[in-house]
């Protein structure tokens, strides 16, 4: 089996995954293939000497947010052969709990035994056979959602091109790859708001906007940040839509208690410095701050997503389209501009420029992103 950047090039299940991905897309979700679920382990206890060990992966993930601020997560397990369905259903139930997915699909091209369907119903999992999939695709065509476009975005060529570009990144940037493929999915969503910026910031000197793989990496980070923002919006609104500032501070540190604990830690560090260096110890910048320096910009960004949840959800889809349909498929003669919600496209650019500023990346990243966005939408 040949691997490239974590993606199996001779993946037999790829056509099934693409079909489900297309279905999710027409349901209004943004999608991602082959999401790895893993755990951080001690190296001396790791089978591979790596710092993480993979449990399993999600074949197709669909993400969206309702206008009522609920993040929707759909997971599909796609296999081209229909063996050991009962075992797989129990496994999928575990995945559902672990990933807190709203809906799980077990997709098999062949017909599924009636007993398996009964089990699936009891486990609240949707079985999609080849016949079901064809029917669902037909429904979306009838509703006008599936225009039958042969755009490279749908046929998998853009996806493969994007993954290939990402896989060609030099090994100096391995931690950035590791974060996007593994750590991002291990961490609680709230932590990614700061972690993602930290990773980009730590490699700001090695990232070049005119380097195609580097730019592809940046595009993927923007998608990941958009996803983290949707989870943030959900958390903030649950806490208090009327006081976004305080709700966001709580969300960043888990809850009020978490925020207070961090404030106490930072206070003690400040005191420690005073003890070591005397009362006059001071800095030009407020380094003893629980909140990151980019917090005001983050608050602005979150507020914009809270105010326009539909556009926020659509921004994630715009990001996916930009990465695959705009960037990766740019060499294809079949590429055409698509009409996107202008506010969603703008919010996406807000996210990109926020990441550039917060991580102190080369500002050319924002400029190129904006140019690509204007050319694509």
């Amino acid at each position, binding site marked *: 089996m040949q691997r490239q950047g974590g993606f199996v090039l001779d993946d037999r299940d790829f056509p099934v995954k693409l079909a489900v991905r297309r279905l999710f897309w027409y349901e209004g979700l943004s999608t991602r293939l082959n999401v790895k679920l893993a755990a951080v382990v001690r190296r001396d206890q790791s089978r591979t000497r790596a710092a993480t060990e993979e449990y399993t992966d999600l074949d197709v993930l669909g993400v969206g947010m309702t206008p009522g601020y609920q993040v929707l997560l759909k997971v599909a397990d796609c296999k081209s052969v229909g063996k050991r369905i009962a075992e797989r259903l129990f496994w999928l139930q575990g995945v559902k709990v672990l990933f807190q997915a709203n809906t799980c699909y077990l997709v098999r091209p062949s017909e599924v035994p009636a007993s398996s369907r009964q089990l699936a119903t009891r486990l609240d999992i949707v079985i999609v056979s080849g016949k079901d999939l064809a029917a669902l695709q037909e429904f979306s065509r009838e509703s006008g959602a599936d225009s039958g476009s042969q755009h490279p975005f749908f046929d998998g060529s853009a996806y493969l091109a994007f993954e290939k570009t990402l896989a060609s990144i030099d090994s100096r940037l391995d931690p950035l790859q590791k974060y996007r493929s593994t750590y991002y999915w291990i961490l609680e969503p709230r932590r990614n708001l700061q972690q993602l910026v930290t990773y980009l910031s730590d490699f700001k000197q090695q990232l070049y906007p005119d380097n195609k793989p580097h730019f592809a990496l940046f595009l993927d980070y923007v998608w990941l940040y958009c996803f983290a923002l949707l989870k943030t919006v959900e958390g903030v609104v649950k806490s208090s839509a*009327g006081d976004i500032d305080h709700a966001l501070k709580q969300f960043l540190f888990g809850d009020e208690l978490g925020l207070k604990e961090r404030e106490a830690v930072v206070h003690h560090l400040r005191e420690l410095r005073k003890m070591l260096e005397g009362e006059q110890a001071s800095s030009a910048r407020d380094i003893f701050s629980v909140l990151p320096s980019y917090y005001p910009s983050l608050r602005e960004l979150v507020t914009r997503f809270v105010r326009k949840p539909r556009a926020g959800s659509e921004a994630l889809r715009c990001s996916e389209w930009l990465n695959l349909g705009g960037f990766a498929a740019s060499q294809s003669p079949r590429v055409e501009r698509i009409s996107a919600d202008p506010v969603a496209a703008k919010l996406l650019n*807000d996210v990109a420029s926020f990441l550039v500023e917060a991580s102190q990346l080369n500002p050319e990243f924002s400029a190129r992103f904006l140019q690509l966005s204007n050319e694509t939408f």
Partner: protein
Amino acid sequence: MPSKLDKFRIGLCSQDVHTGLRNVDPSSGAVVQYMESTRLVGMAASLALTIKGQDVVEDAEALKVIVADQLDIDPFAFNQVVGLLEEQGIVYNVERQSGRIKRLYEKVPVHKNVFEQLGEVWEQRGPTEIEASMVATVDALATQPIRHMELGRTLGMDKKAQQIVLDLGRESQLIKSVSLPKGEEVLYSPYFSFENPSILAELFTKHTDAEIQAEFEGLKSYQGLPLSDKLPVLTDAVARGLLTAPSVEAPDGELRSFVFAPYTIGHDYLTTRKSVLEKALAILACVRCGQHFGGYTPVAFPARILQTLLDPSRNRMLKAHSSHRRQYRLLHRMGIVRFIPSGAWVQPQLIDTPDNIEAVKLAMELLKYSGEPLAGRGVPPDAPKLLMNPGRYLTPIMTVQRQRTRLLLTDEHWEKLVNAATGRIRLG
């Protein structure tokens, strides 16, 4: 040249000046000669506030027409105003075709205002002395009325500049006046919601300028001051009908009055939408009553009460309390809240008409820009203590020496520690 104002005030006053200059022919000599930067910055502030929250302005041509009509932003200055906002990163992705602006993305800050940033632009553009004097005058009159003869001395203006500023201010109705006996005048800002400005003359006859200044300054920084014997000028101003002061019943059964002098360039609030302003003042008076006369459970964070009234996820409803029926009776009578029974107590719930929601937001603004907890956030708690303790102050040279001998870790080291403690560190 008048003494320096802070950037926030400059930005604010520039918008006031631009709003006032709408009454003057924009091509008149004085405006063109003296007010170019201030008008430009003022127009930029007005435009920024207009597009705030839009995200995308799809039809900038239409925007140009609308702001020309509604905000008197000269269509010929439109490109320059947008250019200024673009330089400041307040708008971006400005699409131009043959010199015309077709479309733009807006990034006006939601949680902080643009005035400070635009005030800095005003400074960088090197304003004329007349401009600086005009902005300083508008700022001074935004705090309190001032005797004409005191204006130049208070602001450090020369006579020639003062005359031009007053002529332009009167022509544009940015400065108004009432006559005192002996031919003197009191200057005031039309943006103050004085009920009857002619009463100012009586006030200046009865009280000294210093008394008036002290009490008005106190009121400017704290809207909704509880009236008492210690505030003779404001008590007199309320008694004579100059200022408004809604009354709320305190726990002891006494009616307590809370005085306001809101300053707003939103002229609607002083005319056609005065009812919204009155509702806002009533809301704030009730909250102030809980703050100052709350008995055993005074209101500690007035802003949170207003936030709750605005929050649909909390049904715009306060928690039940034994005092609520009394404290919010005024709002109940004015149709701003309804009382939801909760045992023997009640829970006030905002009646969510557009006017009521706007009134709560306005009350929030009045609270926010009065030096309340919202504005005071972010001040390190230790800073005031250090300022109050001069005995521990070290001269700069001594400080340098102490730093040299004692410095163990650099800022970068400490920052890394803080980042690690707050979860901003890479895992691998």
